[in-house]
């Protein structure tokens, strides 16, 4: 994505069969360059496909690699990771732009009005700010299909709720600080709910299982209550 390459900061032991490569400091916040370096390293490692590779977790500024200790020792894993981190980005998967419909309304997003009030904006302004930003998929985790998207425009960034909800409904579109996401399934959560998306974010029986992957771009667009219901949404 960017020509300006972010150097590898460190490779740390994570466990007896896991190592983590840092491209951004753990307390540095969201950094687009670090995210690009993570994606490039993950794609280089995937292409190299060493026999010891068990799993990978790309995240904002780090890549966690799990390996089979019967197939490789920590020095080998470290050397391979270093090589993959420093190599040129291979022609990996091209990132796609995924557009996701959202029904923004208090009945679908119980925190929408409070968030607007806090930001001294109208609900319509919040919606237009949320929909005009192009978000990057920084990480997938927490739950199957949960994509961490960033960055939310500072004007509508909002801290997590003081008391998390015990149940956030499936499809809830939410904001926490400068991150936004769609809840793939009902779960507890402390993010601010601003709408609902009818597109399933994780369907084990569908192919592909998820509409987005790490590195993709996402843009939301507003739909009406009728469109939301017609697309399979429920209230």
């Amino acid at each position, binding site marked *: 994505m960017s020509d300006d390459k972010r150097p590898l900061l460190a490779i*740390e*032991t*994570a*466990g*007896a*069969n*896991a190592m*983590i490569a840092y491209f*951004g400091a*753990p*307390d*540095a*916040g*969201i950094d687009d360059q670090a995210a690009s370096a993570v994606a490039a390293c993950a794609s280089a490692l995937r292409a190299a496909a060493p026999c010891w590779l*068990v*799993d*990978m*977790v*790309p*995240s*904002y*500024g*780090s*890549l*966690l690699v*799990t390996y089979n*200790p*019967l197939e490789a*020792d*920590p020095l080998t894993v470290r050397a391979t990771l270093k090589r993959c981190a420093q190599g040129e980005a291979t022609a990996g998967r091209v990132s796609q732009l995924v557009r996701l419909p959202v029904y923004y309304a208090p009945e679908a997003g119980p925190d929408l009005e409070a968030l607007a009030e806090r930001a001294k904006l109208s609900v319509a302004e919040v919606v237009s700010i949320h929909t005009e930003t192009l978000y990057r998929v920084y*990480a*997938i*985790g*927490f*739950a*199957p*299909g*949960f994509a*961490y998207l960033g960055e939310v425009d500072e004007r509508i960034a909002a801290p997590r709720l003081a008391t998390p909800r015990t149940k956030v409904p499936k499809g809830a579109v939410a904001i926490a600080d400068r991150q936004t996401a769609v809840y*793939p*399934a009902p779960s507890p959560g402390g993010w601010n709910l601003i709408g609902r998306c009818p597109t399933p974010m*994780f369907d*084990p029986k569908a192919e592909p*299982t*998820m509409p987005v*992957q*790490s590195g993709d771009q996402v843009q939301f667009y507003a739909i009406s209550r009728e469109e939301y219901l017609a697309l399979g949404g429920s209230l």
Partner: protein
Amino acid sequence: MSSDNTSTNTQAHTQPHATLVKPGVLALLMDAGRFGQHGLGLTTGGPLDAEAFFWANALVGNAPEATAIEVSVGGLELRADTPLTLAVTGAQMPLSIDGKPQPLWQSHRVPAGSLVKLAFAESGARAYLAVAGGFAVAPEFGSTATVVRESIGGLDGKALGAGTTLPLNPPADAPALARLPEPLRPEYATTPTLRVLEGYQVAHFSTAQRALFYSNEYSLSQQCDRMGFRLSGPALKCALGGIVSEGICLGAIQVPADGQPIILLNDRQTIGGYPKIGSVFTGDLHLLAQLMPGAKVRFAPMDAACAHAELLLAERRRQQALKQLETPS
């Protein structure tokens, strides 16, 4: 299509099966775990005591990753609808077949119609019940491991319920009965010292904080499940507040703001944003898996090269032990 249906039906009649009469506290179908699916946000699952799981399968002649039942705390009852060969390993959960007590860590022939009971654990917390051939469950995302939180694996992603019919794979050959000699069985300590590979944000824990961690006992709180064990003891302070979310490996020890460490286990979320001091050595996790809330643990630092050597030696010991299986008298 119709011939396919016929063959499926015929198979259903001839396929060996068992009925779960009572699941007890928690019974989960489990293979070795789900790997290569972190990109979707799917966790690994798999047996909390990988050592006992391995031996349950080995004793009935199965492949190491064959699907078995992880029984937590006990109280399970199973009826053999067709003859089967089974073995139970792990926690001291008294096993009986048709009311007659039977030893763990060895395989048994169970005639059709027999009732297999696993009473509540006298020590330890998790036992593994394997049958020759393994339970016949379709894998999801490459694994049969049940992860209830994700509704994936096992039968419909759920813990096993009373009355469930469990289909079994027909064993390739009637396996010879086998017993793991007592000296080769894992030793489960009551207050184990868990060895720790320092890593992740360890540099942000001061020398004093690390000394506090290694010189005190921590007890298992009531909040212990397959996702993680929350401990209680002297609070640890990390110089970092929050961090940006990053991948969490098996055994990682995260320290939230309250300073009480949480050891993340098989059903952990794949990424999280709490600082971590390091990870419990994977070769020690089976010791933790056998503890109940209230039990105490200690920690000791471990060198990464030493950890690697220990894992290789453990595998070699396993392979040697496989050659030393006894025939039960």
